[in-house]
């Protein structure tokens, strides 16, 4: 809560919590590059939506940046080889979601130069005679570059770059909150690639025809706010003809501000209707790292083959911000960061609030991996106690739900009651579990409840 006192009065959303930040270990470390390892494992399902369709065979030689899987439907993206090497197998391998998933295994070619493949000319579409096909071409390029939301949810970005018929987009909000404790990868991207973030933002706004752009950054990253403002004024002075205004908004430090509905509330003071999308308010939200990846794609024809992740926590010897090729096993990344300390007890992919605890270290870094967090002691020392009706979870829930009631309904197997209490509006930010003085695993129970409710809704 280091900055909480100084950020009062700045815009934010209602409810939410103030977890300790723990960002000090890595926020001032420049992004370093992970050396290549011998094997890469690329699950076909690295995004929300249908898994990609594998287009390589075992034994085939692939070059860094070459496409190895095609999108399978509209809500799906392509996948590219992160290294030059040979496809060793296409088989079931451990996935960060805890299950085994169909993955492409690539053994690196030790003597290859690791040059990127010659930029592939986008097939048709681009620069076509009429405007609409040009726009479709851009959406397809983003899909074929395999770009997904790099904030953590890994939703295919091109879907949010296509304005559905009958709708329009007036505002683009870029998410630079990074409200999860420990993580600093977006912070470093904003500092080191500020101009790229701004250029990506311009591309997104141009594509969507949006007149207004906002970049929401929490106040604890004041250096990033300044760098972005400088990059913005430079960008503006270079291109006078650009349409639309971009503004950097400093926000209060609060979790879960990086959730798109909370961010819209914080930046624009508008509420997305329950069960609705930001699009209903003519708004689209993207992450800063995604904007940077889109700029990279347009300027250098680079597909998404690597991402910045934060390796941190008390359990890791040398915390760092690292650019990691997709598919690198997390064991190798941890080794690069000095390895785990003997007292490390838990490894989480993502942040401590919404991240997923792992049962083995063979799982690869995927597009949605924002960090590797090694914790030393169990976070919960006292066991569960009865609910004392203090109502703290109600004050914490950013979606204005009643987590204690939902948990009770789950324990009593009342699926219909769950639906009428809007269990599906929960996006599992874990604020309720965080504040509960009785240590009731509220968000865990609500996740069970969501599965129950889905079973009732789709018999």
């Amino acid at each position, binding site marked *: 809560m280091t900055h909480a006192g100084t950020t009062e009065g700045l815009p934010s959303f209602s409810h939410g919590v103030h977890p300790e930040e723990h960002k000090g270990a890595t926020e001032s470390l420049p992004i370093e590059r992970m050396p290549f390892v011998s094997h890469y494992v690329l699950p076909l399902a690295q995004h929300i939506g249908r898994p990609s369709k594998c287009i390589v065979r075992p034994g085939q030689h692939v070059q860094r940046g070459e496409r190895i899987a095609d999108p399978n439907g509209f809500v799906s993206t392509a996948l590219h080889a992160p290294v030059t090497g040979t496809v060793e197998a296409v088989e079931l391998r451990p996935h960060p979601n805890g299950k*085994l998933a169909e993955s492409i295994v690539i053994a690196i070619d030790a003597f290859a130069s690791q040059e990127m493949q010659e930029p592939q000319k986008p097939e048709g579409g681009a620069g076509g005679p009429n405007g609409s096909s040009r726009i479709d071409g851009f959406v397809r390029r983003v899909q074929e570059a395999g770009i997904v939301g790099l904030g953590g949810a890994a939703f295919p970005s091109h879907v949010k770059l296509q304005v559905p018929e009958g709708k329009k987009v007036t505002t683009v909000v870029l998410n630079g909150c990074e409200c999860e404790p420990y993580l600093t990868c977006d912070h470093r991207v904003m500092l080191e690639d500020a101009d790229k973030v701004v250029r990506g933002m311009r591309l997104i706004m141009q594509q969507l025809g949006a007149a207004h752009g906002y970049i929401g950054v929490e106040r604890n990253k004041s250096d990033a706010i300044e760098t972005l403002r400088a990059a913005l004024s430079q960008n503006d002075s270079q291109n006078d003809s650009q349409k639309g205004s971009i503004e950097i908004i400093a926000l209060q430090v609060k979790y879960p501000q990086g959730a798109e509905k909370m961010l819209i509330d914080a930046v624009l003071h508008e509420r997305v209707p329950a069960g609705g999308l930001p699009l209903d308010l003519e708004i689209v939200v993207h992450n800063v790292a995604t904007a940077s990846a889109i700029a990279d794609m347009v300027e250098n024809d680079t597909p998404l083959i690597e991402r910045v992740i934060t390796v941190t926590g008390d359990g890791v010897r040398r915390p760092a911000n690292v650019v990691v090729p997709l598919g690198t096993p997390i064991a190798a990344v941890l080794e690069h960061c000095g390895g785990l300390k003997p007292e490390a007890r838990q490894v989480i992919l993502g942040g401590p609030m919404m991240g997923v605890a792992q*049962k083995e270290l063979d799982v690869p870094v995927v597009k949605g991996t924002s960090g590797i967090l090694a914790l030393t002691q169990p976070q919960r020392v006292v066991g569960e106690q009865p609910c004392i009706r203090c109502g703290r979870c109600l004050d914490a829930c950013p979606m204005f739900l009643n987590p204690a009631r939902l948990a009770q309904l789950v324990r009593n197997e009342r699926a219909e009651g769950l639906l009428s209490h809007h269990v599906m509006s929960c996006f599992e930010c874990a604020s309720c579990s965080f504040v509960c003085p009785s240590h009731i*695993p509220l968000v865990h129970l609500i996740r069970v409840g969501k599965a129950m409710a889905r079973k009732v809704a789709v018999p």
Partner: protein
Amino acid sequence: MNEIAIAGLVMTGIAGFFGVVLALANRFFRVVEDPRIDVVEGKLPGTNCGACGEPGCRSFAEALVKGASVPGKCTVSTPAAIEDVASVLGVDADFQEKRTARLHCAGGKSAVRRLADYQGESSCRAAFVVNGGGRACSWGCLGLGDCDVVCTFDAIHMNDEGLPVVDVEACTACGDCVDVCPLDLFTLEAVSTEIIVQCSSPLAGEGARLACEVACDACGRCALDAQEGAVEITGGLAVVRSPSRATEECTFRCPTGAIAVVHGDQFQEMELTQLRRSRHA
């Protein structure tokens, strides 16, 4: 005196008025119900388990009287009570073959490799939403006993290996355990089906055996030894295609014991082996 008389008259008047209203309501809004429904319902066990396919005993009684179901579909009641129901209705009892829930996993604590500790909510469905517990096999029994809790007939008990054992005598095949299991490990099988594949892992070969000692590794010996088409290997798993033609020969060469002959309750042999082991120790 006069006031009491007025009060008495008013009360009598009101009583008379409502009496007439009720009499008319009984005459015009009457619903004729088959009296046999009540009789039949009285003879049913009243557990509302749903094994017959109806939501409860009352609607089963209605279905019986309508002729939409047969008395034998009630697997909870005693044969004598079912005969009784059949004689009231003047129909054939039409006894159904007794079915029971069978678990398609034998991966107990000592058989499956454990990768991590799960310390959350003690429920299979809760463990399932976070990485599927700490077991190496993502398809097998989590052993936290949601089926034990949900069973109305106290027919499921967790054994020392952390596997649910279904008491065939007590099981009514109501299907609650089938619904509650997040991994869909239970199926309802006729008691006469004795060849059961006790594994659900789609992995084949070494991958399957590394995760669990008793996994089906899809070696295919059972399919070769069984009669043509009785057992098949599909999706890395042996599948009994024709229970009546699958005989115990097909289990003899199984290297892991994943396909097994089951008489009565499952996992009896496992307990015997444990007993033997404990006596050795």
